[in-house]
């Protein structure tokens, strides 16, 4: 405090300095005291040193924390990504399963199918129908119970869907000369081929183009196909 007071009392700017009217008091005897007190002052080094090192530690910690956060985030993001891929594939599976079930329902709802089911349960079409008038409590017409031998109208064949189809064998076209050769060479083979050609017709379906484009996806020179997700 005394030092501060001293310092502040010395701070006097030129033109505001008071004009000395009296001779200065003798300062000589006090000088050695002052010197002594100055010598006692020493550099205060501990405080700044301590502050700097703590700042460095703080910064390092912050960096470490930031790195940690980034690490956690990237782990969780990649984990989330895996989960997302998983869920997306699950979704597509479910969509497919749902689609199949819907289609199965549609096929079961087809009138031919219902008629066949009803017939299998022993149901017959109604014969003569009548009307009941609830207001007059009368029955008009001459309704008769259906007899078991009532026959329905003709059946309409059910839709041809979803029987796994064997691919239609496509014989490579032979040149006429080769054809002659082939027939000469093996009659047995010929008959076998005929038999196999006749077989697929057992499963009724329009011929599928066996010469379908081989479905190798364009990998742009790579080996892993890009993820096949729709949208986003």
């Amino acid at each position, binding site marked *: 405090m005394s030092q501060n007071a001293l310092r502040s009392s010395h701070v006097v700017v030129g033109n505001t300095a008071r004009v000395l009217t009296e001779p200065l008091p003798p300062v000589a005897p006090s000088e050695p005291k002052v010197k002594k007190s100055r010598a006692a002052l020493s550099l205060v080094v501990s405080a700044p040193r301590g502050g700097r090192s703590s700042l460095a530690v703080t910064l390092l910690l912050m960096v470490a924390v930031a790195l940690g956060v980034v690490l956690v985030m990237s782990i969780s993001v990649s984990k989330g990504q895996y989960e997302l891929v998983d869920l997306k594939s699950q979704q597509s599976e479910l969509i497919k399963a749902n689609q199949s079930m819907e289609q199965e329902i549609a096929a079961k709802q087809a009138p*031919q199918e219902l008629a066949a089911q009803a017939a299998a349960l022993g149901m017959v079409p109604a014969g003569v129908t009548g009307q009941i008038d609830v207001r007059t409590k009368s029955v008009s017409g*001459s309704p008769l119970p259906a007899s078991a031998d009532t026959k329905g109208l003709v059946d*309409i064949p059910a839709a041809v869907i979803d029987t*796994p189809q*064997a691919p239609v064998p496509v014989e490579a076209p032979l040149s006429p000369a080769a054809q002659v050769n082939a027939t000469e060479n093996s009659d047995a083979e010929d008959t076998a081929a005929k038999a196999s050609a006749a077989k697929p017709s057992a499963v009724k379906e*329009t011929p599928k183009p066996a010469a379908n484009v081989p479905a190798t996806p364009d990998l742009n020179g790579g080996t892993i196909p890009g993820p096949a997700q*729709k*949208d986003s």
Partner: protein
Amino acid sequence: MVQNSSPSARGANAQQLNKIGRGRIGWGFIAMMVILLIIAGRLVLVQGLDVGNMAQAAENQRKVVQTLPAVRGKIVDVKGKVLAESIIRYNITVSQINFAQYPEFKRVDIDPKTGEGIIDPATGQWKVESFTADEGIEQLSQLLKLPFDDVKKSVTGDKVHNFVAMDVSPQVEQQVAALRVPGIYSEVVTKRVYPMGAVGGPIVGFLDKQGKALAGIEQTMDAKLTGKDGSRTYQAGKNGIIIPTAPVRTVPAVDGQTVKLTIDQDIQFYAQQAAQQQKEQYKAEWVSITVVEAKTGKAVAIADSDSYDPNNVGASDPSDIGSRSISSVVEPGSTSKIMTAAALVQEGLATPLSEYLVPPTLTIDGQNFSDSFTHGTEKRTLSGIITDSMNTGTVMAGSKLSLQQRYDYMRKFGVGEKTGIALPGESPGILAKWQNWDGRQQYTVLFGQGVAQTPLQTTMVFQTIANNGVRLKPAIIDSFTHADGTVETVPQAPGVKVISPETAKDARDMLEGVVTMTDYKVVDIPGYRTGGKTGTAEAPADNGVGFDGYTTSFIGMAPMDDPRYVVGITVQRPQGNVYGITQGYTFNQVMGQVLRSNDVPPSTTPPVKLPKFYK
């Protein structure tokens, strides 16, 4: 010596070396700077100025554009039952080379309940089972329901790609994949399926293998059903993996619209059954049954015998492809007489009770007309002429109409023009200009000969009468549902006023007379008043020379108090005595089914019975 000389020599060497070294360093520095400058210059050229569009080329190389296919819209019936939809199916394929490499293969046992591998408690490992290739084929053939030999044949060989089975469902594909048979793969395909098969087949139409619409609604509504493919543009490295930091641009696909028809699949099924029944019973060439809502013109059923299954078009006779109800033209015969009668009433030339003295045969302008039954000279009302379908009486009454009037009325009833129904291959029918009619044709058109109509056109003539004289455009599309769920209902097209409501009422009374006053009462739907008209015409031969067989028909409506439905039945070339053939029973069946399934209340008013004769 050594001690002396060495420091001096060393000092000289060091100095020299220093000098040389400095020079080398200088040169090296210059060389490095030059190299650096070159590299830097190149960098500026490549990176900054991009001489030769390297960046663009690189991006193009990395850029991958993937198509996101739009799903084709569904076709559903009026109750929302699916008539056509696109689904995912798989083709099971094989790499025969890969298959041959593994005479034996192993797979982990899978618990069917959890879908996880079963862990063997003894070893703590997954239970692994081993199978021979033949066992694998056996398992495959069981799943695919194909003969063992066929599967074996398709998997053995040296092809890289061969098909084992086509069009298997996703579940089966999953099971096949779970078999883990080496070399067996699958590929996804989109397939159009028609769950109702032949029911409504000719209406719905089909696609060819390339997905091009070839018939029916698929064809006419192709633009609506087809969605807009989307795309995904991304950058991928050489290994095909997407570069995550590069931009990904996705244009989502817009799926096609769902087309809702006015067809009711249950009625359609019933009508198709009835048509098939008639065809088989009379060994006819074909039978058409159309059901139309009288007040809206909506087609409830357009049934053809031998309808094709769109899932399996190849199995059908090519001549059965298409809908005969709208594409085949036949002479309508006596069903046209109601047009003549309506025109006479509308023009004020007659009423249903106008009196005509009808001779056994009628000769007019040198043309001789007779009836299907023999009769003496009879005192007939106009209604009586219609009831017993007399050609003589119709010509007698109808000859009061001018040729142009005859023509104009037929045109107004829709003869000679397409109805405009949204199905491909519609025929306008054949109606020659009245100036071109020959001496006999000018009278035969009065009773439906010398003119040709499609079965649907004939049905629409009766719809006009049922709908108080306003002919509507037959509608088959109820609404469109966009991919985003908005529903766009197709508005009712404005009708054509053909006759006045009063004339239509008179015409309906005459049609009811056909049912109530005829000698052989066949048409009878208990509880409902019905009206209609039979028709029999000679069918012109297919080669255009003379006639060959007959066309018989019955078009009717019900309930007569306020007609709701019109049913038209046309049988082409039935075998046997045509006058013994009646479509009345079929009409009873189909119309009865329509009325009952649509909860139409029974008639409450007594039927109209106009006298056939006057005194």
